C-alpha cells in the first residue's frame, strides 16, 4: 500500500491539512469561548452596577423593606440564579433566597478569596477577577460576579447609620446568572465549526487527490501498464499520449520499441 505513488503523495497532504485545520479549530474555538465568556462577564458587571445604583437610595435611607423587595424582584428575573448583598463582616443581609439571610459567607470560597488572600483584603479587582464559574446546588452552571459596594461621602455622613469615612468597602453584591444560554451558544458554534472544518478537509484533500490522480497518477499508470505489456512480450495497443511532460517519456518508449522491432527484423534469430 505504501509503495504506490498515490499513497505516498496523499498521506503527507492529508496529515498536514487535517492537523492544521484541527489545531486552528481548537485555537479558534478557545478564543471564541474566551470572548463569549468575557462578554457575559461584562454584561453581568453592568447588571451588578445597575443593581448597586438602584439600591443606593434604599441603602442611604436604610430602607430594608425596599431593599428586600428590590432584591426579590431582581432575583425573580429569568436566568438569575442568585442575588445577595452581604456586609463587611460577610453576613448575608439581603438575598433572593430568604433562608440564607443572616448566614455568614466563607471568605475562602471562590469569589471571596480573590480579595481575601492576604492579611489586608484587596478593595479593587479587575473585571475578570470578579467573576467565578461553578455549578450550583440545582446542578446549573453559573457565572457569578462579586461587586464591592464602596463607601461614599453621602454614606459616611448619613444620619441613620454612619460608616466611618476610612472604611472603603461597605459590603458586596453577589449576583449569579445561569451559564446555560452561553453553553448552548458555544455548542452551536462548535457544531457549525466542525461541519465547516470537515467540509474544508474534504474539499482540500479530495481536490488535491483528484487533481493528482487525473494529471499524474493515471498517466503514469498507463505508461507503466504499457511498459509492463512490452516486458511480457505482448504486442498491440497504442502508446498512450498525454498533453504534458510525460509525452517525452512516451516518445522515448516509442523510439526504443521501434529500435527493438528494427533490430528484431534484421536479426530474426534473437526475436523481439
Amino acid at each position, binding site marked *: 500500500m*505504501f509503495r504506490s505513488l498515490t499513497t*505516498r503523495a496523499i*498521506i*503527507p497532504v492529508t*496529515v*498536514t491539512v*487535517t*492537523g*492544521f485545520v*484541527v*489545531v*486552528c479549530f*481548537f*485555537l479558534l474555538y*478557545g*478564543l471564541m*469561548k*474566551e470572548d463569549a465568556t468575557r462578554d457575559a462577564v461584562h454584561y453581568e458587571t453592568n447588571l451588578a452596577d445597575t443593581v448597586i445604583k438602584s439600591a443606593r437610595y434604599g441603602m442611604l435611607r436604610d430602607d430594608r423593606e425596599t431593599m428586600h423587595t428590590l432584591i426579590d424582584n431582581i432575583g425573580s428575573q429569568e436566568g438569575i440564579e442568585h442575588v445577595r448583598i452581604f456586609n463587611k463582616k460577610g453576613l448575608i443581609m439581603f438575598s433572593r433566597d430568604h433562608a440564607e439571610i443572616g448566614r455568614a459567607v466563607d471568605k475562602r470560597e471562590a469569589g471571596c478569596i480573590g480579595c481575601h488572600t492576604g492579611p489586608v483584603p484587596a478593595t479593587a479587582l479587575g473585571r475578570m477577577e470578579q467573576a467565578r464559574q461553578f455549578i450550583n446546588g440545582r446542578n446549573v452552571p453559573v457565572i457569578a460576579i462579586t461587586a464591592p459596594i464602596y463607601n461614599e461621602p453621602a454614606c459616611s455622613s448619613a444620619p441613620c447609620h454612619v460608616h466611618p469615612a476610612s472604611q472603603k468597602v461597605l459590603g458586596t453584591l453577589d449576583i449569579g446568572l445561569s451559564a446555560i444560554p452561553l453553553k448552548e451558544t458555544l455548542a452551536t458554534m462548535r457544531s457549525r465549526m466542525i461541519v465547516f472544518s470537515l467540509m474544508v478537509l474534504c474539499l482540500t484533500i479530495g481536490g488535491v487527490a483528484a487533481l493528482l490522480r487525473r494529471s499524474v497518477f493515471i498517466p503514469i499508470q498507463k505508461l507503466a501498464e504499457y511498459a509492463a505489456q512490452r516486458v511480457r512480450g505482448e504486442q498491440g495497443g497504442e502508446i498512450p499520449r498525454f498533453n504534458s511532460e510525460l509525452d517525452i517519456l512516451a516518445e522515448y518508449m516509442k523510439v526504443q520499441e521501434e529500435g527493438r522491432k528494427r533490430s528484431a527484423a534484421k536479426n530474426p534469430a534473437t526475436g523481439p
Partner: protein
Amino acid sequence: MEQPDTFTTSQEHSQRAENQSTADRRAAIGENIKRLERRANHGLYILAIFITLSIVAVQNFSLLPSFPPAVLSALGKPPSAQMISAALLVYLFSAIILTLARMMEGTGKTGGFAHLGYLAAFYFFYHFSGDMDVHFWAVFAAGVTILSLESYHLWQHCREEILKERALLAELDSLTRKSRLHP
C-alpha cells in the same frame, strides 16, 4: 621457475583480499540496513513519548510535584493564553513547512527530540497560564500532526535507503557469482 608460483600466490592473495573486502562491504551494508531499520522506528518512539507526556499534561501535571510559591513568584506572570496560542500556530506552520521541505529534498534530517521539547514547553506555558483545559487539544493535535509527519518522512526515507543498500548487496552478490564462474 619461481615466477609462476609467485604469480599464483599473488593472484590468490589478491583474490583473498578481494573476497575479504567484499565480505567487509557486505558486513558494512548489513550493518547499515540494521541501523536504518532501527532508525525508521525513531519517529514512533518520539510519538509514544509525546502521548505519555500528554497523558500527564491532561491531568494538569498532577503527577509531578508543584513548584513552591517562591519559585512561581520568581518566574513572574505567565504570558497570556492568546500569546501562547499565536506562538503555537506559528510553530506548527513553520514545523510543517520545514518537514515538507525536507521531504522534497529527500534528506533524512528530522527535528526529533527538539519538537518534543517545544511541545512540552507549550504544555507548561498553558499550565502556568491556567488555560490547560481549553488549549490541551490544540497542543495535542499540533504534536500528533508534526510528529506523525516527521515519523512518516523518516520511515519513508529509511525504506528508500534500505532499498538502495539491498540493491548494492544484490550487485555484490552478482559480482561474486561472476568472479566464481570466471576466476
